[in-house]
């Protein structure tokens, strides 16, 4: 045990003589779900971020309100690697139920903080141990019973702050941010942080190499979760109608809309320029959203896998009747209820082809909170421009965890309301318009909205077969002409959806293709691969339908790897379909275990494939 009477600042080196490890490690905080550790964890995260050091946090939590084990991992990385790392070097072991496994998983040379009263089930001689007097300090805090678990978590915040040299003023500032400046809560928590810090200063001899040092790599950025960013994007994107039904992990998009819309979108009399309706199920949700879209409003919902399944009939209907609507699908693990609080990218195929019969949907795939904000508005624009359903494929990791972003930019384009004819337009056209006639050659037709005061404005919207004038038709030529036009519209969409982000590498034979939150792990993996002598180019997809430059990228490289977080290689299948002649050169690197992908797994998986190439 490392407990002594030392009162000095911890030395920078480890007892075993290792050099300092600065701003390059991961912390796992193991707690019991419902014990209020989020405040403590986000406080650490924000404090390190404010010290200018790149940092990310991931809440690996159970589908449970109280009692099951939960983990929060904080990755501190001077290089700016914010993906999950495979192993943590620092463990805060606050949960008896998981402590044995948690200790076993800790990296060699790591450190373990634990409550001093907690009997350790196993020991490892390659770790450094720091017991914390949690109960004693909680008692000293004088906190009332219901606040005690929260205060207990502040003990590890203070101890870590001492051991890692996290600035106490930044901890206090982070607490103040968290509690919205409520001084009583800040004081109670910070007093315990300070007490733990002082206790550690007096009793702990620093015997490990880990520490945080100020940098300037986070200046001009702030932390926000993807669901909040998505909601803000929608608010500034002019959303008018929101219907929803609670489902993890999408609900906080609605929570944020319910906070920001009343604040930002009421007139001087306090009346709303939007409506939010909680529906009885997802069937009703999507019906309301489609009904509002048909009537001319920018409409959206947020859901996750099981909800998306229920929306499938209306999704096909919106495609065929050409009604704008937006669904945010914050992906979690399926099939079925799956693991509702764990991440996956497993709705790619389902979302793209949602509904029966022919038809494909526009999908946007954000990789960062910055893109969540941007796509919040872009999805509404594209839905109205293309008169169709747009599905945004976010995921739990992006939606619920805090990520850095530069301040959000005010949209530089006006809202795109698409091709809508007014009564004046109809006068000009002398009433001669056909709802489903492709006048402009882009497959997108002109629509009118209910309530348009013109005798020729009305048309009959139907999910049944129809001709250009929206009349019922069973004529084979009408059916095929309509579906071909819809396919043409989908092709046109390739030109206006957010294009891929390409990072070429001169002379590289290997091209990596990925999307969404894999981005950070892929970028880090490329550095790891480079270190082994393998140079890679990288294309990050941001939308479906797939865009023309993907085919170019594929022809430019000999071996292609599609990296994704599902078992079936869903995007891999779409990429192969997009370039069938090259299909045998495109390899799936896919995994789904409920956790975000790591750079080392991606790197190792690609090296295994590359080794096969050598043979």
């Amino acid at each position, binding site marked *: 045990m490392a407990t002594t009477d030392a009162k000095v600042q911890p030395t920078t080196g480890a007892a075993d003589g290792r050099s300092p490890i600065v701003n390059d490690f991961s912390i796992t905080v193991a707690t019991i779900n419902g014990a209020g550790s989020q405040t403590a964890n986000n406080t650490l995260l924000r404090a390190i971020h404010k010290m200018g050091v790149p940092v990310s946090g991931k809440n690996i939590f159970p589908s449970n309100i109280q009692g099951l084990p939960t983990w929060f991992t904080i990755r501190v990385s001077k290089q700016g690697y914010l993906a999950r790392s495979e192993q943590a070097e620092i463990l805060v072991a606050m949960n008896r139920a998981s402590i044995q496994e948690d200790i076993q998983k800790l990296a060699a040379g790591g450190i373990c903080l634990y409550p001093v009263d907690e009997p350790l089930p196993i020991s490892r001689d390659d770790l450094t141990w720091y017991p914390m007097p949690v109960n004693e300090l909680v008692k000293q805090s004088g906190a009332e019973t219901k606040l005690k678990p929260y205060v207990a978590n502040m003990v590890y915040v203070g101890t870590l702050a001492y051991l890692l040299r996290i600035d106490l003023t930044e901890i206090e500032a982070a607490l103040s941010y968290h509690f919205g400046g409520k001084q009583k809560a800040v004081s109670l928590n910070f007093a315990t942080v300070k007490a733990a810090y002082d206790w550690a200063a007096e009793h702990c001899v620093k015997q490990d190499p880990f520490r945080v040092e100020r940098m300037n790599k986070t200046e001009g950025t*702030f932390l*926000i979760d993807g669901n909040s960013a998505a909601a*803000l994007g929608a608010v*500034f994107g*002019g*959303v*008018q*109608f929101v*219907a929803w039904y609670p489902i993890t992990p999408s609900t906080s998009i609605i929570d944020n809309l319910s906070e920001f819309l009343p604040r*930002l979108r009421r007139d001087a*009399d*306090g*009346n*709303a*320029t*939007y*409506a*939010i*309706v909680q*529906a*009885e*199920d997802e*069937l*009703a*949700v*999507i*019906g*309301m*959203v*489609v*009904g*509002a879209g*048909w*009537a*001319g*409003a920018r409409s959206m919902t947020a859901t996750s896998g099981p909800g998306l399944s229920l929306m499938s*009939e*209306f999704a096909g*209907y919106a495609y065929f009747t050409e009604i704008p609507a937006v669904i945010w699908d914050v992906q979690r693990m399926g099939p079925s209820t799956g693991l509702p609080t764990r991440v996956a990218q497993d709705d790619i195929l389902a979302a793209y082809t949602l509904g029966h019969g022919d038809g494909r949907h526009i999908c946007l795939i954000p990789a960062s909170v910055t893109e969540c904000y941007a796509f919040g508005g872009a999805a509404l624009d594209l839905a109205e421009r293309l008169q169709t359903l747009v599905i945004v494929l976010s995921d739990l990791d992006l939606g619920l965890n805090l990520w850095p972003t530069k*301040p*959000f930019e*005010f949209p530089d384009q*006006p809202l795109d*309301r698409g091709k809508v004819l007014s009564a004046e337009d109809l006068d000009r056209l002398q009433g001669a318009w056909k709802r489903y006639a492709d006048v402009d050659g882009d497959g997108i037709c002109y629509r*009118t*909205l*209910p*309530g*348009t*005061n*013109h*005798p020729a*404005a*009305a*048309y*009959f*919207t*139907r*999910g049944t077969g129809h001709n250009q004038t929206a*009349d019922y038709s069973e004529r084979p030529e009408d059916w095929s002409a309509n579906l071909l036009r819809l396919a043409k519209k989908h092709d046109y969409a390739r030109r206006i959806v957010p294009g891929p982000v390409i990072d070429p590498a001169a002379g590289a034979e290997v091209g990596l293709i990925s999307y969404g939150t894999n981005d950070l792990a892929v970028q880090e993996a490329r550095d790891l691969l480079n270190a082994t002598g393998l140079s890679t180019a990288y294309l990050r997809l941001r939308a479906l339908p797939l865009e023309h430059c993907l085919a170019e990228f594929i022809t430019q490289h000999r071996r292609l790897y599609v990296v994704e977080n599902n078992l079936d290689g869903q995007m891999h299948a779409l990429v192969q379909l997009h370039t069938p002649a090259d299909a045998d050169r495109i390899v799936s690197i896919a995994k789904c275990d409920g956790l975000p992908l790591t750079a080392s797994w991606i790197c190792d998986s690609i090296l295994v494939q590359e080794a096969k190439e050598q043979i």
Partner: protein
Amino acid sequence: MTDMTTTAKPEAAAVNRIGLSKADYNGSPSTLCNGCGHYAIANVIINVAYELGLDPTRIAKISGIGCSSKSPAYFLGRSHSINGLHGRMPSLATGATTVNKELVAIGVSGDGDTGSIGLGQFKHLLRRNVDMVYLIENNGVYGLTKGQLSATADLGQKLRHGGINETPPLDLCLEAIIAGCGFVARSFAGDPKQLQALLKAAFSHRGTAVLNIISPCVSFNNGEGSTKSYVWGREHEQPLHEIEFVPLQHDEIKADYEPGTIREVVLHDGSIIRLKKTGQDYDPADRMAAIRLLEEERVGELFTTGLLYLNEGRQTLAEQAKLVALPLVQLPNEKLRPLQSALNQINAEYS
């Protein structure tokens, strides 16, 4: 419902008060079976819209799937229409009317669409009190799939394909009252005079007005013994009252009712329904009385028509949402995007 009178032009007799002829309210030629009750209902809708002088461009027809749901094609051709999914008309109507509260929404559904697959959406729409007229064209049978039993099929009813029904029917009027609907009426496609008066009143009601209309299916459910047949309907219909509707803008119709036997109900827009008592002393504002009546008729195998329940006191969904005065869909873009300063403020709060 909102009255949409704009300008009252005194014109020749062939046009109504907004200058439209009756033909302007027609739809496409019908593809329903000859003699279908839905025909009669379509004609009543045309008559009522014409006589009230409703502006067809302000009407939205919303329907689900089934014979009834196809029928909006056959009336009000100048009105936008959306023929949606089976049982999902209520959700479409909820979205459309919330974002455009000036729309006069007519939902058209059937007994399968509302009572079977769509019962959940039906009841939740009533809970929310979406401002619309909700027509159930009730024939107790699935017509488009050629004769299966629906949730309103009679107990013991025998259908060629459906077999004998062993499951008791749902009474959609009772379901509506229990769900909190403020206007619940029942009528019969074979009684266009009553239906017309009820439909006019429904248009004047603020909130959801449910009209459950027994509409015989001549192809699959018009046999003797079926309570949804013309014969049974004519023999067993028991009107609660004779109904006269007096629109606000028109000169009062001189009723020839005996004083003391007439009850007048003033609707929110000032128009009046006159209910002439035909026997029992019935108060449509009494929810328990309505429920009792429906239970008694179930036992007595009668079917009462008329205005069963009326409560104009509830807020509509659009009212609960505290929306701006203009319909949301008419707001200019600048009202939909907050200012740059608001974004700057939010960026600062997160920093």
